[in-house]
């Protein structure tokens, strides 16, 4: 299915969500095959606890290396990067990450819109954006940017999301390529390995 829509090989997959999307990731990650040809970037809204427990939590669910981003880290294929709490995560054209502690966007830092837009700028049509469960409209503008740059937009099937508002907002406002539940998300991401 999905492969037919891709114009160029996928270089990056950005996944974003807030309330309830951790549950999705905990189901998703164990089912993913090692990723080879692309980079995965996860941005989740959460409280700034001062501890990087999200990285550990996700790393425990997969054999794919999971890393919380430190300033100026390089983006490498085959790795899942996690946005640190309380910083916006941006991507530079030279394929390094930058962090930014400027104002919250959509009451959120990290904001999905900020990372998605920045990724769209760098990866254009070789990017996939996935929006999971959440209770605010962050991510909609970001998916729009991905769409405009020629990338693929995906929303979690709202009925399967703990908070349907976030994917629903995107479905209403952005041309969404695929609306997928968790098993479909798994097979989609696995199908991207080239």
């Amino acid at each position, binding site marked *: 299915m999905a492969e037919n829509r891709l114009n160029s090989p996928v270089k990056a997959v950005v996944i974003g969500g807030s309330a309830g999307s951790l549950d999705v990731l905990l189901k998703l990650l164990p089912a993913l095959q090692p990723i080879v040809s692309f980079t995965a970037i996860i941005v989740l809204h959460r409280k700034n606890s*001062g501890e990087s427990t999200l990285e550990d939590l996700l790393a425990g669910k997969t054999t794919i290396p999971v890393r919380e*981003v*430190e*300033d*100026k880290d390089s983006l490498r294929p085959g790795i899942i990067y996690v946005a*640190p709490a*309380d*910083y*916006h995560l*941006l*991507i*530079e*054209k030279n394929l*390094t990450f*930058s*962090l*930014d*502690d*400027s*104002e919250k966007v959509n009451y959120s830092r990290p904001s999905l819109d*900020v990372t998605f*837009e*920045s990724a769209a*700028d*760098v990866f254009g049509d070789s990017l996939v954006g996935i929006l999971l469960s959440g209770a605010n409209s962050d991510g909609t503008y970001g998916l729009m940017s991905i769409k405009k740059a020629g990338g693929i937009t995906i929303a979690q099937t709202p009925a399967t999301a703990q908070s349907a508002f976030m994917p629903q907002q995107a479905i209403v406002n952005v041309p969404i390529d695929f609306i997928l539940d968790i098993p479909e998300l798994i097979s989609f991401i696995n199908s991207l390995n080239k």
Partner: protein
Amino acid sequence: MIEEAEVDQLVNDLYELYGYDFSNYSRASLKRRIIRLCTLDKFPSFAEFRHRVRSDADYLKRFVEEITVTVTEMFRDPLFYKCLRTDILTTLTAKPFIRIWHAGCSTGEEVFSMAILLKEAKLLHKSLIYATDLNPAALEKARNGIFPLAHMKQYSENYIESGGINDFSSYYTAQYGQVKFDEKLSEKMIFSIHNLVSDRSFNEFDLILCRNVLIYFDKPLQDRVFDLFDESLAQLGYLALGSKETLKFSMVKLKYKQLGKEKIWRKIG
């Protein structure tokens, strides 16, 4: 949407006309700040925005204020402050005089946090904190020591988590939704404009704090600033960075030893 070449043009203008050098700022973040300011000030096009920056020196002031990020808080990352309290200040106690540089201090919340730590460690009387930033408006706020009352609940929680045992409200007086911090705290602060991109070292310090400033710089500029800090740090002095910043990728890293988990390094080489 703004093109990469347009950002380049603007960066050139700023340097040629005003001497502000943004060429080594992290590009993605700088571009986002420029788009944000364009939208905020309702410019119909980038060309008009650029024209205003070029032709209106007053608008340049606003540009610098808005492009540079001034988000900060008191006792930000409380465990970092706890480490300053228990590990760093105790080793500085023996010194007859303590010089601290807070580089990129923005609106000064962390400078006042440091003054409170020094006061509680009974070191404030023999300390001087040099607080610098390139943003004059932010520095003016820092100098006044007046912050929104609405933030005090969070700051008080941070303060307690950092190991503070006093009543946090004893450090300020509240009026009309604002609080003013005790002037005894600011007696030991010296505020001045300093641009990390272009200005030089101006003293020797026992502790340099530069938190969440280097994230806005690219690697070559980070290296320049690390050299500047290295030049400005006394032997066995400390360098303290933001929670996601690191010396790991820098040229000076071999001369420094990180202390535990916090982003604090000691100059050993």
